[in-house]
């Protein structure tokens, strides 16, 4: 019994030590204090050097916390109990958050860089007049292929994936809207279709793809493709950019018949507490040189027109990530569908996944 007591006291002492050292360490990495900004971001979605630069220029320390899906972020912010100053949802999630009264409108009088942005990515239906959001990065959905086994030019369109040559060779991103959307495009339907028969047809089309599907995975696609685990994948352009950087045999195609255009946006959740830091950061991130630096680090396409002009020509003219106007015109933005309609997509998609 005495030994037990001693053990408990010992453990408590260790706990105290751990708590103290964790606090010291956190202080040395500067994440406490009042001059801070709490950014809720996707994993590895900002150049860390920019955060240091921002702190040097303005004195605000940025705490970055990460989420792995729009829905996880929504849940956290919706439940309260958190104090994020800025978050970066995708376009359909902006609508959803707006509708749930989770966002604070932007005070345009305090924004200095708004006219740096390309009008193509402004005033979209998901947020008319950009009352709540500023575009951060944009991109597409497309096909990644490995030129070790796939000849360039042989897989340019969605329908090419259905060829029996590619049995057990394709990796798909685990996302209902995107994979269903791909099938819808091959059937000349809108990516926002909600007619049950149309969706049923899309599922049947996907079921025909099943023998070619090697796996349906998430972020890991990047790692798998970089390691030559599969020759073909369907994934977003941002992920593709990272794969291409890791493996020079990989290429990215946006099928010209149509695909998805996604835009990630900076928004202010209603839980925000540091107004001054927020606007300092938004203006900082709108400056062309900072945006350009960030775009080069992340490898995604920037909606900031002036920043794009600062990028090296090889990046700017890369049709893989800045598609030409014809392809751009065929891209579709996802609308925020009602939960019941989203459920239709999810049900059909689940049945496809169970089809194996």
């Amino acid at each position: 019994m005495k030994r037990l007591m001693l053990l408990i006291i010992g453990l408590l002492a260790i706990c105290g030590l751990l708590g103290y050292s964790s606090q010291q360490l956190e202080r040395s990495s500067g994440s406490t204090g009042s001059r801070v900004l709490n950014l809720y971001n996707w994993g590895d979605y900002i150049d860390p050097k920019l955060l240091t630069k921002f702190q040097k220029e303005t004195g605000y320390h940025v705490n970055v916390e990460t989420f792995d899906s729009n829905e996880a972020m929504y849940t956290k912010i919706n439940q309260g109990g958190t104090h994020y100053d800025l978050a970066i949802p995708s376009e359909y999630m902006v609508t959803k958050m707006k509708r749930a009264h989770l966002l604070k409108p932007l005070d345009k009088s305090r924004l200095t860089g708004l006219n740096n942005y390309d009008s193509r990515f402004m005033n979209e239906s998901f947020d008319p007049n950009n009352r709540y959001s500023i575009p951060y990065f944009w991109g597409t959905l497309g096909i990644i292929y490995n030129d070790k086994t796939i000849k360039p030019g042989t897989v340019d369109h969605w329908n090419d994936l259905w060829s029996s040559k590619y049995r057990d060779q394709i990796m798909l991103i685990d996302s209902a809207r995107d994979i269903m959307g791909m099938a819808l495009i091959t059937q000349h339907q809108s990516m926002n279709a909600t007619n049950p028969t149309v969706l049923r047809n899309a599922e049947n089309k996907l079921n025909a793809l099943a023998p070619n599907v090697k796996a349906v995975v998430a972020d890991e696609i990047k790692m798998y493709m970089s390691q030559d685990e599969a020759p073909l994948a369907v994934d977003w352009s941002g992920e593709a950019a990272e794969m291409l950087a890791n493996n020079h045999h990989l290429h990215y195609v946006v099928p010209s018949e149509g695909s998805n255009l996604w835009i990630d946006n900076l928004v202010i959740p209603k839980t925000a507490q540091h107004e001054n830091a927020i606007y300092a950061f938004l203006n900082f991130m709108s400056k062309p040189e900072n945006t350009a630096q960030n775009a080069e680090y992340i490898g995604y396409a920037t909606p900031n027109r002036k920043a794009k002009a600062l990028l090296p020509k090889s990046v700017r003219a890369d049709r893989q990530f800045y598609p030409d106007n014809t392809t751009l015109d065929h891209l579709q933005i996802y609308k925020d569908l009602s939960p019941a309609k989203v459920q239709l997509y999810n049900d059909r998609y689940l049945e496809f996944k169970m089809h194996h």
Partner: protein
Amino acid sequence: MMTLTKRKTWFYFIPYGLWLGLFVIAPLALIFYQSFFNLDHHFTFSNYANYFQSLTYLKMTLNSVWYALLITVFTGLISYPTAYFLHGLKHRQFWLLLVILPTWINILLKAYAFIGIFSQAGIANQFLSFIGIGPQQILFTNASFVFVATYIQIPFMILPIYNALDDLSPAFINASQDLGASGWQTFQRVIFPLTLPGVKAGVQAVFIPSLSLFMLTRLIGGNKVITLGTAIEEHFLTTMNWGMGSTIGVVLIVAMVIVMLLTGDQKPKGGTPR
């Protein structure tokens, strides 16, 4: 006498009772309650109707049960001899700790390690090429999924079996041997039946969590195996259909109760009338 101590000691159980109320019964009630609401927050039985009428969910349930069964059987087949042999070792406590130690390394990291081992250019395939079979597709097969899931569960099965062996009085074994039973007979007639509670505890600790595995189904199985856990995760995190997710949760909880009843310790010796 007994009642007196009881009255005096009831406050010892307050923390546990509080925990039961706040962290078990309340969440349980919450899930049960939510399973009756659809996406528009209206009261409905449609989630249950959906579950039991849709072929997809029934197939998924059968799939999950089948894989959980496979994983449990393999885990048992490996864990029992391991626990048994381990128990015969000199520094057995130390070896037992070494069995638990791998569970302290994060499951995600172990999954990534297995991806490295099983990938096209990984060690497993290099070995297969070396012995002349040639590289095979190992990742994203059902076999690799079952293998990794079994790997994850082994320590959780070894521990209760080991404890049961530990509790076994050597007198029984000596008696059996004195009566002229062979080693195998002793094991079959004496040791195994007496350690059965440990096996049952192990099955409880492995089977239900196996029904609801989710990370591995995607990372190792490539979503070719969809378990109830995958579906729950999807409903809670991606599609935000908490009602349907809760419904599957209720089904899982019912499954748990069934498994517990099947493996629970009935006490036939006492002859309590039913």
